[in-house]
């Protein structure tokens, strides 16, 4: 058995028997790891607080030669991201980013700068103004996809490689993996997007993350960029990112709360469509 130390972000946990937990981590040096935290289900466990999804920890683990699951020896919390945990919308985005990593990253072949990117995104998620959360997530998605080799093709039409010009109609296809020109879209069925949206996709891949809070996207561009989580990523990963629905549910609830606050007395009840329909 070999002991090793690494910085890591807790991605998920599942129960193992009555006392233990199996934790999935994104580590700085060893990619995605699974490790057993002995006694982590006990209330007084020294591991329990560090084993929460979204925690940034420094862990000392035993590497077993026989099995693929390692064992925690020590674990220190560097940040619990309380700013994310204490606000519903930020937490919904936190869930989404963790699920993206769970579904897109496989095994140990992860470059350390992916870990750095995820960590930076989580720190920003804690403090960035709420209205900038969607643009932060789009930038994260595009950067992560680029690092992992899933970058959408934006240089021209995926089919005929014709360059996209400002005044021409542009389509985007999650299935095809990038832009389609008007001719090729007839057969491949892409979604009509504005030229501006394509420019934003290119820009969000490279812009400094610290400048994201100052960016203002038009409503149309914001809506069109949703094609990345809704169509592009599911086609690349091969399955839906389930927590995106939760972001939409929370956004709808927040809008309803805001509307209720603005339009009438403080005691007015918030109408929640899926409950009120019952």
């Amino acid at each position, binding site marked *: 058995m070999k002991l090793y130390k690494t910085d890591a972000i807790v991605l*998920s946990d599942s129960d193992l*028997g*009555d006392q233990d937990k199996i934790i999935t981590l994104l580590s700085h040096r060893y990619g995605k790891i699974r490790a057993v935290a002995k006694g982590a289900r006990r*209330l*007084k466990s*020294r591991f329990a*607080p*560090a084993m*929460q*999804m*979204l925690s940034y920890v420094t862990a000392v683990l035993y590497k077993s030669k026989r099995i693929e699951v390692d064992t925690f020896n020590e674990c220190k*919390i560097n*940040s*619990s991201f*309380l700013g994310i*945990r*204490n*606000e*519903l919308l930020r*937490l*919904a985005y936190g*869930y*989404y980013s*963790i*699920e993206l990593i*769970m579904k897109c990253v496989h095994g140990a072949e992860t470059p350390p700068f992916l870990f750095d990117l995820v960590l930076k995104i989580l720190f920003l998620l804690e403090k960035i103004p709420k209205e900038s959360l969607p643009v932060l997530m789009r930038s994260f998605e595009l950067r992560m996809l680029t690092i992992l080799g899933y970058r959408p093709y934006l240089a021209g039409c995926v089919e005929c490689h014709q360059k996209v010009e400002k005044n021409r109609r542009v389509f985007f296809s999650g299935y095809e993996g990038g832009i389609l020109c008007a001719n090729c879209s007839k057969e491949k069925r892409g979604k009509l997007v504005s030229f501006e949206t394509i420019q934003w996709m290119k820009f969000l891949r490279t812009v400094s993350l610290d400048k994201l809070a100052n960016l203002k996207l038009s409503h149309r561009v914001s809506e069109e960029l949703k094609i990345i989580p809704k169509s592009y990523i599911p086609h690349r990963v091969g399955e839906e990112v*389930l*927590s995106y*629905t*939760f972001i939409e*549910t*929370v956004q709808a*609830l*927040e809008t309803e*709360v805001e509307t*209720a*606050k603005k339009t009438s007395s*403080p*005691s*007015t*009840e*918030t109408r*929640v469509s*899926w*409950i009120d329909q*019952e």
Partner: protein
Amino acid sequence: MYTVKSINKLVKEFSNLPGIGEKSAQRLVFFISRTSKEYGKRLIEAIREVMEKVKYCSVCGSVTESDPCPICQDRTRDKSIICVVEEPWDVFVFEKTGKFRGLYHVLGGAISPTKGMNPQDINIGGLLKRVKTHKIREVILATDPNTDGQATALYIAKLLKGRGISVTRLGMGLPVGGDLEFADEDTLSHALEGRRAM
């Protein structure tokens, strides 16, 4: 290969239980085969009774033998306070303390978006109906102190905002018999927020 059909059948049934693998199932079956006939009968009777009598309370969602459950029917309980828990067994844990005299609401799980559990999949609708139709003064959110429990509590708190109800979350802090040295920042900050005069 020599096998005993009846043993295999029971091993297969036991290994369907959560946390029980084939080896554990075999151990259980061999224990049962060696034990007295009386014990076997009592076990069968206990399982049959649970299957026939236990149901979910139509008001709070807890497990019960009568609907509504004895807690919901109890006139001495404070009907203006609802304690929201994730699972039916959480009710038993609270009842063991003997400190809570209000009513319960069992959600039947927690919001866990990465596992596909959204607000629509747990019994939040039932809670909202109870809040609308009864005079509720306080809702205590006693979901688990983990990320999913927190998401569930935040969602319900937002939903109940503006209804004139006091929404509280169960206190979080240092466990009895714990060591301050090993407390993490999250636990300590909660413990500090929830400190009380002595």
